[in-house]
């Protein structure tokens, strides 16, 4: 009878916040999403029957720089989370804006790359390379776009006082997503651009 | 009265017989996989029955066991419904995990052996090129004298009995599946890649085959016949086809894929 008072009711059974656990499961699921597209790319590598081929188009130095930009955005994301965790909302806003700026920079790099490739005659219709490459990196770009939207939303909520010290979890979730998208890019950059 | 009764009795005894005969009609199917006329189909029938009998035995064991348990342990009148609480028995459960593994493992050699045998490329075989089109089959034969390939009439395949036939499958449209149930199981006809299979007919006769992969509107009508002939008849047929083709008789393959 006295049990009731003495048993502490844990927030969750695993100790992880529901939202955080859900985010991890979502990311696990998303791994298979990208995995399937990457597999299609690898399966069709070197099977294009007409050009332009990957080796004619890739500008590795350019893409290395934009990859570095995305990598750097992960660092600023970490700093944004650290800022809200120690209660420094102003610093958090700075780092959020910085992260989304870097994300947008990466996206404009991708737009530039797609335009260049298009000028060289590459569309999803041209060959298997065009199909698999554009769809794979296009979906990655869509993920980054969603990430930027989330970061900007967090920023605007914060400026209107709707994101406070107690809401570090929101920034943490956005961070998990952002780092994941970043890691996926590292894999794409390695498998798609570098290993040929 | 008596007359009417006897007439009724006659009818009543005829009805099951009639039902029985129409039920058995199915075994006369020209696509009955249980009455093979080729070595591959015979092997497949053998492998199926070898699996089917133990499976049937297990099935009967489970179904009758279940029935027996249900009858034996039904709640009787006055039973308070408080049976002994048994939570499990590790030894027993390990036993019925291991037993099926052992039983099933016995099939592994048959699977691997059969796959390798049916996957091999036969030597000294008669080659037939098969094209699946929407919705018909075109069979053609390399000319023995080195000329252009000889075409068979649409939806008709000729092969000699008692020899390995190597079948090469082509499609420039959708996926089809080449199947002559009495001679051999099916192999898919894939666009963009050439699959092949082999078979050997043991009996002279005509066999029916059918496309087994859904291929669009008239999939159901994509059937063909296989004429199995003696080697001499087959050679004569091939020669006459080649001659007809050379004299400009292109009529047979007016029907073509796009």
């Amino acid at each position, binding site marked *: 009878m006295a049990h009731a008072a003495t048993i502490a009711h844990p927030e969750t059974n695993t100790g992880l916040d529901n939202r955080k656990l859900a985010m991890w*499961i979502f990311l696990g699921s998303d791994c298979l999403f990208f995995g399937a597209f990457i597999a299609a790319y690898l399966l069709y590598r070197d099977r294009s029957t007409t050009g332009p081929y990957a080796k004619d188009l890739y500008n590795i130095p350019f893409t290395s720089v934009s990859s570095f930009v995305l990598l750097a955005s992960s660092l600023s994301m970490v700093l944004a989370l650290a800022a809200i965790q120690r209660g420094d909302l102003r610093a958090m806003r700075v780092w959020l804006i910085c992260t989304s700026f870097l994300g947008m920079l990466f996206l404009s790099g991708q737009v530039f790359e797609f335009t260049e490739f298009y000028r060289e005659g590459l569309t999803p219709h041209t060959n298997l390379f065009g199909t698999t490459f554009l769809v794979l990196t296009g979906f990655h770009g869509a993920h980054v776009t969603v990430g930027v939207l989330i970061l900007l939303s967090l920023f605007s909520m914060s400026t209107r006082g709707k994101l406070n010290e107690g809401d570090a979890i929101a920034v943490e979730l956005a961070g998990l997503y952002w780092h994941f998208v970043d890691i996926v890019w590292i894999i794409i950059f390695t498998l798609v651009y570098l290993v040929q | 009265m008596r007359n009417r009764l006897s007439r009724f009795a006659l009818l009543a005894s005829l009805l099951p017989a009639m039902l029985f005969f129409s039920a058995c009609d199915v075994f006369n199917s020209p696509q009955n996989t249980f009455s093979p006329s080729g070595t591959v189909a015979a092997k497949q029938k053998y492998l199926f029955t070898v699996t089917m009998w133990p499976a049937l035995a297990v099935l009967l064991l489970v*179904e009758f066991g279940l029935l027996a348990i249900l009858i034996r342990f039904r709640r009787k009148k006055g039973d308070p419904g408080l049976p002994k609480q048994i939570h499990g*028995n590790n030894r027993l459960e390990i036993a*019925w995990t291991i037993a099926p593994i052992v039983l099933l493992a016995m099939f592994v050699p048959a699977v691997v052996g059969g796959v390798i045998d049916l996957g091999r490329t036969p030597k000294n075989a008669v080659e037939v090129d098969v094209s699946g089109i929407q919705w018909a089959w075109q069979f053609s034969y390399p000319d023995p004298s080195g000329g252009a390939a000889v075409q068979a009439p649409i939806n008709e395949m000729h092969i000699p009995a008692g020899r390995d036939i190597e079948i090469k499958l082509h499609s420039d449209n959708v996926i089809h599946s080449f199947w002559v149930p009495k001679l051999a199981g099916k192999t898919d006809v894939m666009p963009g890649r050439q699959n092949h299979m082999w078979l050997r007919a043991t009996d002279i006769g005509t066999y029916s085959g059918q496309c087994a992969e859904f291929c669009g509107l008239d999939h159901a009508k994509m059937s063909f016949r296989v004429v199995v002939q003696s080697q001499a008849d087959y050679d004569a047929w091939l020669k006459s086809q080649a001659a007809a083709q050379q004299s400009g008789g292109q009529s047979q393959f007016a029907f073509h894929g796009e």
Partner: protein
Amino acid sequence: MATAIPRSRRVTMADALRQTREDAGSYKGIWSWLATVDHKRIGLMYGLTAFFFFLVGGLEALLIRVQLARPEQDFLSPDQYNRIFTMHGTTMVFLVVMPMSAAFFNLLLPLMIGARDVAFPRLNAFSFWVFFLGGIFLNVSFFTGGNFLKGDLGAPDGGWFGYAPLTLNRFSPDNGIDFWMIGLNVLGIASLAGGFNFVVTILNMRAPGMTLFRMPVFVWMSLVTSLLIVFAMPVISVALFEISFDRLFGANFFNVAKGGTPLLWQHMFWLFGHPEVYILILPAMGIVSEVLPTFARKPLFGYPFVVFSGVAIGFMSWGVWAHHMYTTGLGSVANSAFGISTIMIAVPTGVKIFNWMATLYGGSISFKTPLYFAVGFIAMFTVGGLTGVTHSIVPSDYQQQDTYYVVAHFHQVLFGGAIFGLFSGIYFWFPKFTGRMMHEGLGKLHFWLMLIGFNLTFQPMMILGLMGMPRRIQTYQNDYGWGFWNMMATVGAFTIGVSLLVFMYNVVKSLRSGEIAGDDPWDGRTLEWTIPSPPPPYNFAEIPQVHSLDDFWHRKYTEDAEGKPVPIPAAAAAAGHDAVEAGHGDGHGIHMPSPSYFPLIASLGFPFLGFGLIYHMALLPVGLLLILVGLYGWVLEPATEDLTA
């Protein structure tokens, strides 16, 4: 000492309705359903929608059976036939069995683990609405092919498996396939959202003391199913995106002329498709594992074995996909390997069957309708499992592949298995959610008609397949001798149809005048039977403390020296029942999530996106806007309000 709800209190349907009305607060009538985030209401809507689609899919099956009843018939044209069998398969898999399982997850998981709702109630509503609209979207295609009344159907005609290149524009120029691929992707979003929700709910929301190995088997099977959904759905999504890009934007994923390969589609489809089979069957296995112990009045025999074999099935289901592709020319090594893995997946399934039989053995079996259906499940599923073993013998399967033998096999599993299991669950938990019992006599009539109809429909197909009848043919010639058994199958199919009429009559009759159930009509074993029927919106006035597997049974019975149960007097049972979160017995002061329209608004965007991709791009921004408005509103509104405030 915490105050418990007096168990004697009878709650009727009227009470329940009043309660839900109070719960909805300012939301009245239909609005309270559109905005609901209560897992029980969402579960009910899932169940009703899935049952509606079951009737649609069943009607399609009857049309197919009429067409095939006799040789050389023209009741359906080849075009109509192809569209209808495509929709039958697609509907039964994605719009019936999956959402029916989701209905059970919704209704039961929180109750079984002692929670007040799922982890994300609004995401749950979103899942339902996306599923609902996706299902409607898919079926709208019937009416887009011209004059529906004259028999011009516009539905997809590529088969539920949608093999490329048949599904490319060149071979399927009308937009039926577009509806199919977009509709399935939308349904995939619903399934994924549900999958995340249920995994988190099970892992995170269990009542104190409910360790993983005190969870009911149904909860375990739901966990495995949800994880399979989470990891299998992205694969089919990608495949569907690829075919969409090919059809809508001229990409080349499956374009043979540009070097693409149709095998890519098959690998991806079945890499999803085989786990999918277990997504369909595992929930029913979970249901049977709850029903049998209750009516045998014995614990499940070998709980750990049943759980582990379920988990093993979940893992192994990823390694057998190519057994759908033996005849595609994968080569000897791949065919042998997949043959062996298919042989071995029979083992955990067999273990379950033996354990269920051992559960009944030595019991005191009470023959109520749920037990009938559960036993029917074992009896029929065994046939499906054993025919599955014959498929693993690769060389002989070259004969059976794509014949009616396969049709018979998977209906043994999905109808004899999944559908029987789900009906067992409906009869079992109906009293919990309506407060009334279903009629036993009608229930048993339903069972016998369905069992006879089922065997009459699908056993002949086994013969037909072995006698060389291929699948998916619109008609067959008279001299093939297939007429008699096809007629039998048609008679069987209509018998199943009649059994469903009996079922529907039973539901209506029982809702009106069924016997009042009380909290615990079956002498149940799990937590849902501790609360009133129907459950109040907050489920548990006090979150229970769990001490063992089958916790509720152990509150009611103790075992004597011989292992026989001895009832614990009610008063003592109540005293031993700890509550963790001392609340008020009447639910005052419990904070429940407040109703919200935003999930519905967000999900409304998807049909706009779908129609936009098919008909006019101008609809796309509307869809995107709806989704964005829905999501932002969702994130920004407060999640909970005081129920009684």
